[in-house]
């Protein structure tokens, strides 16, 4: 293969990796929007908390002398998912449920408040500095002629793809096949009607927050391991990017969030590949504006029907 195609392939790999994690976080935004029509701005912070919990568990287990990496990762995953989901549920219970039914702007402000609260809460309890973890999953494959251009796929990147794929498949099955999933879909069709039909919508909404938080925790663990660094402010940028991915794919649509994440990740990588990398955000967000101009409901979103 020529240098150009190898380079293109490397950048595609980089873009798909970052895009996968955008997608995982974006699901949380899109599910909540799909059901109660609000943007949960504290969602990025749930991701950040997932990262912190995973770091603490991994560092703790390593400190206790445990060496088996798969066991460490599985324990970290379970603890991160459980604690983040608890935070997701609590945030919903404390900051959003009492405001349900009020003006749309009020829960939005409450969400922004929650986001700032969580950033500073974690900052005060864990310190505002970067917390670092030595690389745990090392090595990878390389291919291509070293004298032309060598493409690297690290095991960590493969792990991110695999974990994203498994999680997305599980979520899709859960939404389409299970009773709870059907209730979720019903709520997103018409919340009031679902309530009248005897489904406890409060429970379903809480479930949505828990599922979204669990996915964010998975992303938190994966990205924490991939970058090796976490600080109380990582949730803000990650949340902004994931929110963009959700809007790009069509907010409210779960396949849309997946596609939006991948499109955003690949666009960023390709822009950085062929233009000076400071144009990365300009192009990525320019693309968002363009798509919304021509498809206001996003790539896979359903056009909003005015209910009378």
């Amino acid at each position, binding site marked *: 293969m020529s240098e150009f195609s190898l380079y293109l392939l490397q950048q595609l790999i980089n873009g798909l990796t970052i895009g996968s994690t955008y997608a995982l976080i974006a699901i949380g935004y899109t599910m909540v929007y799909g059901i109660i029509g609000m943007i949960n701005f504290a969602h990025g912070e749930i991701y950040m908390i997932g990262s912190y919990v995973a770091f603490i568990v991994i560092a703790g287990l390593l400190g206790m002398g445990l060496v088996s990496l798969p066991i460490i990762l599985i324990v970290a995953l379970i603890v991160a998912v459980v604690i983040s989901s608890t935070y997701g549920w609590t945030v919903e219970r404390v900051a959003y449920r009492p405001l349900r039914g009020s003006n749309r702007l009020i829960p939005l402000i409450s969400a922004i408040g929650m986001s700032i609260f969580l950033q500073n809460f974690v900052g005060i309890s864990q310190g505002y*500095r970067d917390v670092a973890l030595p690389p745990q999953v090392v090595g990878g494959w390389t291919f291509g002629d070293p004298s032309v251009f060598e493409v690297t796929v690290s095991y960590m990147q493969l792990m991110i793809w695999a974990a994203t794929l498994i999680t997305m498949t599980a979520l899709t099955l859960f939404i389409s096949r299970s009773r709870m999933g059907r209730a979720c879909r019903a709520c997103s069709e018409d919340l009031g009607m679902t309530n009248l039909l005897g489904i406890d919508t409060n429970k379903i909404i809480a479930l949505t927050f828990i599922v979204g938080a669990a996915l964010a925790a998975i992303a938190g663990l994966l990205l924490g391991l991939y970058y090796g660094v976490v600080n109380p402010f*990582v949730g803000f940028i990650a949340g902004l990017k994931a929110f963009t991915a959700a809007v790009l794919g069509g907010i409210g649509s779960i396949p849309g969030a997946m596609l939006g994440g991948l499109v955003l990740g690949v666009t*960023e990588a390709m822009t950085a590949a062929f233009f000076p990398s400071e144009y990365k955000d300009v192009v990525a967000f320019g693309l968002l504006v363009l798509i919304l101009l021509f498809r206001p409901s996003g790539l896979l979103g359903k056009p909003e029907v005015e209910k009378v």
Partner: protein
Amino acid sequence: MKKIAKKLMTLGTVAALAGAVSIANAETLKIGLAGPATGPVAQYGDMQKIGVMAAIDDINKAGGINGMQLEGVIYDDACDPKQAVAVANKIVNDGIQHVVGHLCSSSTEPATDIYEEEGVLMITAASTSPTITEKGFQLIFRTIGLDSLQGSLAADHILGTVKPQRIAVIHDKQQYGEGLATAVKSKLEGNNLTPVMFEGVTPGDKDFSALIAKLKKNNIDFVYYGGYHPELGLILRQSSEKGFNAQFMGPEGIVNSDLAKIAGDAVEGVLATAPKSFDQNPVNQARVEAIKAKGEDPTGPFVFTAYAAVEVMTNAIKATGKTDPFELADHIRANSLDTAIGNVKYNEKGDLTESTFLVYQLHKDGTKTPAQ
């Protein structure tokens, strides 16, 4: 729980101190200490605090100046320009006329307007952006060299010692980082070594894989990074994971032990321009011991520049017998002084006439040695 208890105790001590101060107010001169106590670069704020507090302790133990005891009052700007303006206004409102700080150039610059206008003497121990002293202000000084000097020192080292083939200059699009990167680039271009790449990254970004692939494709063998350690740490770490092994170099903003925590072994051999290790200077031996005795770290690059800032300030107060900032500024401009960072002499703008930087090689255990 322990942490909270400790915090409460600190609060209690501060309150007690504040109470004590109001009684002995007549004999106390307050020195404002402005810098990041929180935020991602808080460790630089700690260095400044260690230096200033050590200087204040030494002076107070020696009987204070002109019968006055010194007291350091900490203001947190988190290295955020907006917060820096708020902090500067608060310092003015609190009636403090002598400030050591701010730390990040982007915070120092907006704050200087307020100090100059309100008659507050400010000495920064860490801000290296040339524009800070270019407005013709009376009351603004520093105890650290300029970006332009640091950049040209770095460029000299690249041209004279490293002699790479293909250079990339990367920066973080902020005043400090981009200023340095531009200084390095223009000096290199002046010597017929045009960088192959000149690009910015976004502060706070975590993923640099696309940038690294591009560096690799362009066969870069030397990278100069203008910015701070959180981003460079990740660039180093991801570079070594992706098999990109160029020589890296950065300014003093990357020099602290957190760089090694983030980047691990990839730090070994990275070059950096940093203020000379004043803690190695025999003149400072007793001060180093005193700082160590308090359980603090005397090796940070801004510890003794901050110490010297207090010396410059208090020496002028002692010599003139006054505390009026304008008279002190005139005295500082007119006289040279032996301080913890050597002999300091100022030009009309308030800059040091001699550079205080040296090229160092960083190691994975967080230490540094002078580069060969």
